[in-house]
């Protein structure tokens, strides 16, 4: 039985063989063996080395991992694919990072904005949180107005990157 992992980029796959689970990751010949899995604790073995991870589910199919003092959240690959599509060449679609209320909209459609410029201010947990432009861009679409409630992932504002001032070639 082979279950393809939903990981988009790495195409890690899991197999069941000899009474154990094995994970194959691309670029690494020898597979990883699942030595123990008592959720959330995982022990993997690879090339004679064992490593311990803590693994827990997150929102939208993401997985939270802890290993060697470090915490990472790995998004569900299809979702990451979608995000990649939204952020097509030279285009930014900024979405709300948390639930909150739109307090201020500081720009208008058509405005040219600098990298780091405040575009929209969202209030959450009694703090004002500015949404800033990631690049020197032109505002193409504003999806919200002052007072709107927004949920995480809601699209707030879309930008097209403006041409660089002086490109060398």
């Amino acid at each position, binding site marked *: 039985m082979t279950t393809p992992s939903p990981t988009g980029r790495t195409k890690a796959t899991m197999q069941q063989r000899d009474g154990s689970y094995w994970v194959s*990751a691309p670029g690494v010949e020898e597979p990883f063996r699942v030595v123990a899995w008592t959720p959330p604790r995982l022990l993997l073995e690879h090339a004679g080395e064992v490593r311990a991870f803590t693994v827990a589910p997150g929102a939208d199919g993401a997985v939270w991992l802890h290993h060697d003092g470090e915490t990472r959240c790995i998004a569900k690959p299809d979702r990451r694919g979608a995000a990649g599509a939204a952020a097509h060449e030279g285009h930014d679609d900024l979405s709300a990072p948390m639930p909150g209320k739109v307090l201020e909209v500081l720009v208008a459609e058509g405005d040219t904005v600098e990298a780091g410029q405040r575009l929209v201010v969202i209030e959450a947990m009694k703090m004002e949180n500015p949404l800033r432009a990631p690049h020197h861009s032109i505002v193409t679409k504003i999806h919200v107005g002052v007072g709107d409630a927004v949920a995480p992932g809601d699209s707030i504002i879309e930008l097209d990157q403006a041409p660089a001032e002086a490109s060398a070639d």
Partner: protein
Amino acid sequence: MTNLKRVLVANRGEIALRLLRGLQALGKETVAVYSEADAAAPHLRAAHQAICVGPPPPGESYLKIDALIAAAQASGADAIHPGYGFLSENADFAAAVEAAGLTFIGPTATSIREMGDKTTAGEIARAAGIPTVPAHQPDGEVDAAKLQAAAKEIGVPVLVKAAAGGGGKGMRIAHSIAEIPDLVEAASREAQNAFGDGRVFLERYLENARHVEVQVVGDGAGHALVLGARDCSTQRRHQKLIEECPPPQLPTATHDAMLAAARSLVERSNYRGAGTVEFILANDGAFYFLEVNTRLQVEHPVTECVYGVDLLELQVSVAEGRGWPKELEQRQPQGHAVEVRVYAENPAAGFLPSTGTLTEVVWPQGPGVRVDAGVERGNEVSIYYDPLLAKIITYGEDRDRALDRMEQALAETFLAGVETSVQFCRELIAHEDFRATRVHTTYVAEKLENAAPAPPRDDDPWWQAAACVGWNLGQPDASGSGPSTRQPGAWDTLRDWRATP
């Protein structure tokens, strides 16, 4: 002298747990309150009785004075402890509690009013001979030209601060005279939202300054117990992130002068209860009075570790009219303690609050480690409340030992479901700037601004393999026929459970 029997804790999260536990260890009966959003919160199970005081928004529950006093009366409580935040520095609440015939474990309403207002507090401090930062208090209407003139006199950079504020809310830094009017408006609006009081003032902004504060307890009759100082210079968005006791590399003369200033303030104002006198330590070694916090601070555990005291016990003792044991006045600090605040925030995104369900929570343990947590596995981190999830405190014989233990403790800590400040603080504590006490109040903001965005690191095959296991084995095989892993765990147990009729 009263003897309190049953105490209602008008708070939630880690401070409610710390107070409920501490009160029970002191032999008191306890009452917890909770909002409808907190029916699964750990604090309410720490109490002998729990009462729901309203819907999720704080204004309809934790800030609702009449509901809290009604809960105290219905449960037979004879005292209320406000914790920090919420109503802890609300003079009307203190007055209402006393008017209802209950003991308020905190300062008098008058003290809260005087000290809680930074302008009044500054006047009291100056009267006691303690220097304050050059400042300007606008009268009534905010006039742009006047404000700009005042700012010119003070000298830029200038800080715009809420008169009634705290915790960085309603605070702005103006680097030029021109931007003063806009920033005043924004700060005033934020202050109005947070404290119901939009008054702001201007103050000279001291660059590369440190935040040092003194823990005091007053008996309300002009006597002060001074329990050393804390350094709280590691801040983000003007809120504290890491605190230490005693403050590292602080000249003894400065330390003693700060303690003396704090003592004089408490004695002159007949302050009652625990409080904190905050100072700003300029990079030229001068210090200025900032404000008095008329509550138990978030960071009080570092003082408890180093001075071997229970500040809650002292609060209760003062509230019962018993003062404190005289020998405490000679207490010397022993060792070093550090506290890291675990916030539900994403440091990589400018410390934006992060919400979600905590699907896993692992805290550190062992020698020299104290954890004051307000959440546990399964809890929802919502937008309704402060993003402070927990505090991790480590203690050691000296600063390096305490910090080494903190690095180890943070490495053990794991919260799944929301972004937290843990990893950021771990890296900071390992950094040579932190070790060498080169951190000042704007250090974090400046470092982050200059930091290159971290490259995505999902490619490591070990991490990918581990994630793949989560995606594929995240639930026990429904057929029950797969080769089981060696150790039955919580999810395997579910299968047994499921077999029950």
